[in-house]
């Protein structure tokens, strides 16, 4: 779903297609889904970020401006993905927002210990969910100033 320039603004890591669709719908409504990549498990997310496997030909310098990360993921678990991202020099500056159904204290605590930039519990009601996703997209893409990418 990358556009022609290879610019990626949002990396959505979500195994559930309906949740992904709902999230993308909410972002699209606010015109934030133009440069969005959706990967379905933790392994693919890491492949994408480190340009390996099916994403081998990608330019490493093109990192997303924000990663929306679910925690319960097939293959590589969300917390593991977070750990890898925050331990690697190339990716540690990318803002990561955990977007999960979990409200468990231990998930929140551990995510912050691993260096997450934000932890958001998905509301069940779609209206609230859509609002939340739209707001966080707006914040990280439009309000927040990231460091210069790829440096």
């Amino acid at each position, binding site marked *: 779903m990358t556009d022609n320039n290879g610019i990626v603004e949002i990396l959505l890591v979500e195994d559930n297609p309906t949740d992904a669709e709902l999230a993308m719908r909410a972002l699209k409504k606010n015109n934030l889904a133009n440069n969005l990549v959706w990967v379905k498990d933790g392994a693919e997310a890491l492949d994408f970020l480190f340009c390996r496997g099916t994403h081998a030909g990608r330019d490493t310098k093109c990192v997303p401006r924000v990663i929306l990360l679910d925690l319960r993921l097939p293959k590589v678990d969300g917390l593991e993905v977070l750990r890898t991202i925050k331990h690697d020099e190339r990716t540690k500056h990318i803002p990561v927002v955990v977007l999960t*159904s*979990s409200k468990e204290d231990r998930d929140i605590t551990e995510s912050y210990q691993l260096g997450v930039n934000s932890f958001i519990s998905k509301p*069940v*009601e*779609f209206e609230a969910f859509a609002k939340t996703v739209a707001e966080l997209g707006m914040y990280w893409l439009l309000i927040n100033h990231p460091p210069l990418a790829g440096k």
Partner: protein
Amino acid sequence: MNKIFAAFLLKFTFQRQLGITLALGIFMLALFSSVVGSWQANQRVRSNLLEQGQHITENLARQSALALTYASADNAFEAVNATLSFPGVDSVAIRDANQRVLLQRGNTDPAEFSIQVDQARGTDKKTGKQAVAVLDAESPNAWRFTAPVYSQPVSSPFSEVATPELLGHVTVVVSKAVLTQMAAGIFVANLITSFSFALLILFLIRFLTDRMTQPLNQLSVNMGRAEAGESQVRAVLDGPKDIADMAHAFNSMMSVLEERAAEISQLNIDLERRVAERTDELEAANKELESFSYSVSHDLRTPLRAIDGYSLILLEDYAGKLDVEGMRLLNVVRDNTSRMSQLIDDILNFSRTGRLELTFAEIDMEKLAHRVFEELQPGVVGANLQVEIEPIPPLKGDSAMMHQVFVNLLSNAIKFSSAKEVARIKVGASTGGGETIYYVKDNGAGFDMQYANKLFGVFQRLHGVTEFDGTGIGLAIVKRIITRHGGRVWAEGEVGKGATFYFSIPTPTRNQPDGNMQ
């Protein structure tokens, strides 16, 4: 007497008792036998001495005849000397028929002899011969023998046998000193012999009782060591058979005791191992429960969001193709999704109140009640609300959980009194009987007291969903939190008039450690 004897039996060891009794008996026996023996010996010696004294006196009488016949002391001189040379002879006297002293040797006070034993003097009537000597007087220190002196029969062919003529008397005094000395000697010898035997026997008895009491003492020392907790204490099988049997019994008792102790410690080890196993199992079960509630929180929400999301998409994107009834049905779907979501949250909340560890701190309950009311204020709809919070004592508890208690009770009070024109809610407390009782009172819908026991059950509701919303978990959570704080919950109410919910928290005593109540 009995008391003295009993004290004697109690105070001294068996060995001492036996020794004292035997020593006393043996010494008495020795004394008695010495006395009897020496008395007997005394009698025998006395009769010998008497016989000897008579004999000496008779001899002297015979030898004095010539001297008396001629009234010449010189003639008797030799005989008197010979008599005096006998041991014990104190004095000798020769008198003529008229009691005049012819010759007297030695010193004897005549007054000494107060006891006149025999007054008889003269001839032996039967034989007609010269009379034998008699013991005529006795004093404590001496005997006095007297014998008559007759003229010597003249053997003449011319004359007939003439009657012997009494010429006088001889008196011999014999001292009793010999007898006294001998008696004393015999008594002392007897006494020494008896006492020597007594001592010998005592030593023998001491040796024997030692042989008996030594192992007993050793056994008692061993028992003391065993009592003090020393292990592997065994008595030596020594001493007389009965004592050795006792030591053997002690040894087998100790073996049995040690076996029992080993069994008990083995049982303890088993028990501890089983407790550890059960704890592991419980921990595993707890982990499983946690992962279950994690799944519930994560996996049940996702499909719900999809149902809600796609219903909304339908409503938004296909509004033109749906009639009013279709829209209503989709909204029913969405309402139930929201309700389901609330239920999931409540279940998780309920399980969390049981799982989370309590952190005890001093809580200002009055302040907390005010704060919770302020938090709930925005949700209050309709009724004119009058809140009264009395001064209530603080407590030691988990502040987040106590916050939850007030949220649930006060939101209930607000909810169930919302239909009233003026909703009155009162928070108060009373202390006594080792606990503080807090209450939240409202003038709302109330409840029928016959269902009072159902109020605090999970998902128990006394009102229909259409009447008042809610999942029925709030009071169950309150009960769980208060129970974990060591308190109780109960309620009073009347339909249409209101309800009062009480919870009690034990008043901490001085020596009670803070918190740790589960």
